[in-house]
């Protein structure tokens, strides 16, 4: 059906006008929302005492409360806001880690190690804003959604044997927290890809463009973390961090200084990532690179007599920083130093390549947690064993507290053990400096959820009080090894089974670092996180428990043997029932006789024929 051209044109014009109006309305709506959404990116570089370098990437996206912005997002990833709305999440943290954080060398007291030293594999915990009865089902759906989102097998945390609900050992809550860990989960590029896709500039521009995958995965430790906090008043704040410890491959290698000591390796961003930073992500509110010089180095610089600027007797930074911040601790004595570079000032013609060159050999150490917590297995054989946890004093406490008799240091231990390692909690023993102590002397509070076969893991939350003068404490727990059903064994069952890391926290020690900023408008989320009051935490090792494995070829063997036995039985039975012994031989003999007779007959017939022909011819 054809309309007259003038009507068609008018209709076209009206529809175009309507479309323009709609677009304008939408644009204004998004503009309102966009004004409140923010994205900042930061990178912190720090030299470590054992000739390595730490790089910490920090990306923060924030979205205003849903009621104000509706469902349109400009910078904030929609997948995350949908996740928060669907599962009613108030807090969530998901980390993917490979490698072990070296607490002795890299520190255990500062906010970096407290927040970013994570157990190997995947760790997921979430606090839900739901009635307690619905949380387990929501947790299951959450694990599946996250496994699809991050290309990892997080869905293995769905069953009740894999997650636990600590009340105060991990984080104080009213029962709406769920915690799960997968120690054996591999972490590789496929986990980083979707993580980067949540950033507005992905890895194409800004600080994330430095992430050269072979460099990241060649490191000694890498941990990518997603942390989100959601509330009705503040909206959603999403923090994505990637912490990498790398060995810089410098040309100089191990240089000997004229004094005879070994120089620390001089490195730069190009050495670490094979790339320079050529500009910021254009939609980011601020984009900064920090170089943190630890207290240990600063003290050495002070001792050498110069003041801590970017160019002093001990080291020199390759580019002059835009600002330098000094940490103030409680005693108003300067500790660490922070040098700041604003990426806004750099572009592809003048890329940013922050680096540090050492002038004099230097040895320093990072502040450690009051006790070095480690865990190991005892016992042999496939029937039973013991888990032992040791706390070795690092000498920190002596500086901070007096050594009177009432002095004690609190430690909170949180441990989840899978059901097939059946821990006997009554067998808990405590040894302080080699002497056995009564449990009531050391354990202040303990909450245990014993394991149930194939249903629940064993959860233990303990509050311990150690005397300040203690050097070494050891806790032991006995366990029996359980049996799994043959279908429950993984394909590589002979490797063993993992007990996830235990968390040890020291509630009396506060790990925060305060860098007072000159500009109140330019608050850096990274430094804000550093300022937050957090307790000093450390994770122990993952334990590998060899369990008895069945002979996996047995089902095949059983079928083969059974079939053979049955075949022999039925074969013999049928033979016994149907075969007549001797009848066969008689039958054969008879047949042979008949054949002989027939042959004889044939022969005689032929002879007779011969003789008859001879007689015939003779007669003729």
């Amino acid at each position, binding site marked *: 059906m054809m309309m007259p051209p003038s009507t068609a044109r008018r209709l076209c014009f009206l529809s175009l006008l309507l479309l323009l109006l709609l677009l304008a309305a939408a644009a204004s709506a998004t503009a309102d929302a966009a004004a409140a959404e923010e994205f900042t990116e930061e990178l912190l570089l720090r030299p470590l005492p054992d000739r390595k370098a730490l790089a910490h990437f920090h990306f923060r996206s924030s979205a205003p409360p849903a009621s104000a912005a509706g469902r349109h997002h400009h910078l904030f990833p929609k997948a995350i806001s949908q996740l928060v709305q669907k599962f009613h999440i108030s807090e969530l943290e998901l980390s993917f880690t490979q490698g072990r954080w070296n607490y002795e060398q890299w520190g255990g007291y500062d906010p970096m190690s407290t927040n970013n030293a994570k157990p190997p594999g995947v760790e997921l915990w979430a606090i839900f804003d739901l009635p307690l009865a619905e949380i387990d089902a929501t947790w299951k759906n959450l694990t599946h959604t996250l496994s699809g989102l991050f290309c990892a097998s997080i*869905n293995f945390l769905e069953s009740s044997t894999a997650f636990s609900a600590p009340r105060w050992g991990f984080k104080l809550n009213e029962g709406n927290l769920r915690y799960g860990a997968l120690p054996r989960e*591999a972490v*590789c590029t496929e986990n980083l890809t979707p993580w980067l896709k949540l950033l507005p500039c992905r890895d194409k521009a800004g600080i994330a463009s430095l992430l050269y*995958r072979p460099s990241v995965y060649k490191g000694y430790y890498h941990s990518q973390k997603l942390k989100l906090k959601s509330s009705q008043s503040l909206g959603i704040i999403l923090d994505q961090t990637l912490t990498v410890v790398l060995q810089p491959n410098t040309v100089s290698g191990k240089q000997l200084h004229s004094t005879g000591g070994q120089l620390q390796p001089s490195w730069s961003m190009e050495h670490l990532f094979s790339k320079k930073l050529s500009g910021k992500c254009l939609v980011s509110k601020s984009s900064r690179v920090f170089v943190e010089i630890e207290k240990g180095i600063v003290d050495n610089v002070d001792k050498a007599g110069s003041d801590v600027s970017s160019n002093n007797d001990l080291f020199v930074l390759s580019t002059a920083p835009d600002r330098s911040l000094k940490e103030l601790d409680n005693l108003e004595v300067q500790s660490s130093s922070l040098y700041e570079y604003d990426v806004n000032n750099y572009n592809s013609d003048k890329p940013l390549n922050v680096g540090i060159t050492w002038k004099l050999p230097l040895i320093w150490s990072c502040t450690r947690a009051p006790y070095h917590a480690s865990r190991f297995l005892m016992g042999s054989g496939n029937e039973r064993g013991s888990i032992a946890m040791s706390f070795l004093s690092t000498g920190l406490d002596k500086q901070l507290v007096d050594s009177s008799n009432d002095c004690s240091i609190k430690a909170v231990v949180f441990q989840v053990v899978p059901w097939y390692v059946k821990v006997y909690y009554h067998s808990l023993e405590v040894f302080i400096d080699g002497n056995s102590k009564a449990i009531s002397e050391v354990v202040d509070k303990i909450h245990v959820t014993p394991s149930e076969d194939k249903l629940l893991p064993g959860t233990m939350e303990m509050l311990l009080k150690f005397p300040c003068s203690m050097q070494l404490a050891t806790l032991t727990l006995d366990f029996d090894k359980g049996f799994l059903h043959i279908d429950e064994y993984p394909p590589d069952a002979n490797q063993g089974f993992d007990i996830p890391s235990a968390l040890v926290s020291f509630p009396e020690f506060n790990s925060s670092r305060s860098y007072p900023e000159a500009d109140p408008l330019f608050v850096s989320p990274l430094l804000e996180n550093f300022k937050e009051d957090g307790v000093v935490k450390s994770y122990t090792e993952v334990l590998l428990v060899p369990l008895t494995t069945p002979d996996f070829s047995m089902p095949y063997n059983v079928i083969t043997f059974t079939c053979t036995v049955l075949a022999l039985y039925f074969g013999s039975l049928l033979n016994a029932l149907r075969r007549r012994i001797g009848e066969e031989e008689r039958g054969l003999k008879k047949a042979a006789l008949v054949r002989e007779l027939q042959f004889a007959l044939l022969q005689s017939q032929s002879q007779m024929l011969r003789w008859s022909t001879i007689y015939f011819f003779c007669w003729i």
Partner: protein
Amino acid sequence: MAFARWVPGPSRPVLFFLLKTLPLLVLLTFSSAAPPAASSPAAVHNNNWAVLVCTSRFWFNYRHMANTLSLYRTVKRLGIPDERIILMLADDMACNPRNNYPAQVFNNENHQLNLYGDNVEVDYRGYEVTVENFLRVLTGRHESAVPRSKRLLSDEGSHILLYMTGHGGDEFLKFQDNEELQSHDLADAVKQMKEKHRFKELLIMVDTCQAATLFSQLQSPGVLAIGSSMKGENSYSHHLDSDIGVSVVDRFTFHTLAFFEKLNMYSNASLNSLFNSYDPSMLLSTAYYRMDLYKRALNEVMAR
């Protein structure tokens, strides 16, 4: 059986003429749908999917991972996006502690091409690659909580490439050293897919020992299957990389890639040229393809 007579060679001119006019499945882009006939009840081809499965675990099976990742890269390069690819890898090679080149997987000892790249998305990995999950992906029967990125959301207009590699034998494919996928399981799953209208055409490529036996039970129309070796033959690896320490690619996949690397998204090569490029002396096995099911569907299409 009838299909035993279909051996590659120039002896069936009519059949090969039909094949020559068929555009390569994986090279069809979204826009090149067949012209819809006004009265046709059959669906129009409007999307492509790929399901790539590596079923082997452990470091010495590096080449199976490299096979699958090579196909993944090829399929992505020639136009199928990550949302339409289901990649199942049974183990992690790129970030394996034994890998000297972290986050890199190579299929050639010259190390020119990093198959892992920067943007790989693996949908099922590690212990999740099981026969059950594989059949669930094919038939679409998942639990309600399973996310969309792990589902094969194909419809009756889909062309699907199903590539499987690993260790196999007479009528089975081994999954992760403790399970098997049997040929009749696969045939049943494909039959279910056909009944649920989950594909228009399906190309199955299998690179294992005695690969041709895996699709001997197929009966659904619209399925074209190619295996790297026949019953009683093994499929061999191509070469050993002394640096990584293991073989890095299998012969069948190596020659398949050699064919595809010459193409781009706009080429119009046909499956026939792919099949003709397989030389049994280079493969050390006979690449075997089964077209009888496909020929029936092909006749219907060509008649319109």
